[in-house]
């Protein structure tokens, strides 16, 4: 099983969720994060004191997926989150050793 972690532009979250549910993904976990990268933040001015906000608000989604779904998932996220503008974000794929559903005690693929 793989853990897919994607950093997205916040307003793309709904589209990505829709795309994922089309490939059969029912669950995911979402976190509000601050992104630093090529995309620049903005400047705020408070009574003439400049305040450079160098982070950009981003959304991080984490999805545990069966290996056979991985490519579809990556494809779904990529196409739904794509705007072509800087700051579209990244996807990281990592291995998961074990998954457990607390409610039922099911493990691994059954637990996803």
């Amino acid at each position, binding site marked *: 099983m793989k853990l897919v972690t994607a950093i997205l532009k916040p307003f793309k979250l709904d589209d990505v969720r829709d795309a994922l549910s089309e490939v059969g993904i029912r669950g995911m976990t979402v976190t509000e994060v601050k992104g630093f990268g090529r995309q620049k933040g903005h400047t*705020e*001015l*408070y*009574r*003439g*004191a*400049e*305040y*450079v906000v160098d982070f950009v608000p981003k959304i991080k989604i984490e999805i545990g997926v069966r290996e056979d779904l991985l490519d579809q998932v990556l494809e779904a996220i990529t196409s739904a989150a794509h705007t072509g503008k800087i700051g579209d974000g990244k996807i990281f794929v990592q291995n998961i050793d074990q998954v457990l559903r607390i409610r039922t005690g099911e493990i691994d693929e059954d637990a996803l």
Partner: protein
Amino acid sequence: MILSIQLRTKFQSLRSLSALVFFTAIAWSPASLAAPPDSGDTAWVLTSTALVLFMAIPALALFYGGLVRVKNVLSLLMHCFVIVCAASILWFIAGYSLVFTDGGSQQAWIGGFSRIFLRGLTAQSQSGKLPEAVFIMFQLTFAAITPALIVGAFAERMRFSAMLLFSMGWLLLAYVPVAHWVWGNGWLMQLGVLDFAGGIVVHVNAGVASLVAALVIGRRQGFPQKPMPPHSLVLAYTGAAMLWVGWFGFNAGSALAANGSAAMAMLTTHLAAASGALVWMAIEWVKFGKPSVLGIATGMVAGLGTITAAAGYVGPAAAVGIGSVAGASCFWATQYIKNILHVDDSLDVFSVHGVGGTVGSLLTGILVASQFGGVGLAEGATIGSQLMVQALAIVVTALWSGLVTLGLLKLVDRLVGLRVNAEEETEGLDIVFHEERGYNL
């Protein structure tokens, strides 16, 4: 000396000026006790008192609290609150008496002791056309808000006990004498100084103290490189808008009557606030490309602070002028103090109140003249002579306030330590001094 000659002539002419209404008649003018209080005037001053308390808490507290980082919001709220409480008790104990009762042979410098602990005060006691109790309350709110203004200068780094000691010392040693001089039939009043609602007594006085305090306590860690954006402009806005409303009590209430003078003071106050706001906004729009909420609100406060000395003395067109000058000069002062001098007067108290109070108090000396639509100069006064008196009052107040502030801060530093240590500053004053956090969302 020319001044001592003026003193005598002014003392006569001044009786025709509404500044006189500030002076309570106890002790030396029993005649005024004959007429019973006017219920309409009383109603308006009761209302104004509520409005000025509203300015101190919640308005000023929210304005200041919104402008600091989230870890210090409660400390600002607490400062304003405890100052209101402690100043009220000091006013009861001695403040009122020392400002407004007859000081006998010392009258030029300080009032007397006949109302220590407000002794002898009853519901029947009168002060001019008002029940004395409401005059005391109205003036109390001024004494409460003035030291609270200063806390913006040393925000986010002063120890709580130091703040409390300093504020109360400053109230007694700076506010009380200056208020007596200008409003309590002291020497400046006798010279004919014009300060309708506190341009000098409140704004110059607190503004200069703020500058000195900011210099003595030093900059916050990271200032000016590290940005310290307001944690909630929504909160600051709420406070600012409330300040505007409350200021109607501050300025129009200072007529001490519900009459044309109060009405005109409200109108001039309002127009100056609007002009100050628009001018500040316009400058930002041109200079930075975008007008900001904090900017327009600050311009409004600048307009209000600046019109304070003049409110009941000038006409509406003059008020628009005063407000516009306020917006421009306080904007410029803010940039200069913060970005050029790098003084960390954290919430720009000097730039707004000190500069605004000074500019407004000077302009009062000009625009009071009837050719500018004002109520007219006192008999025998010219614009030149009036300006001289205004300038004298400003300079003396600034010097006095500055010296008192310096001395007190040095003393308080010895007694309890003025400033938190670096770790406490990083942690934030809310946890360090009050073991509370502003929000648990």
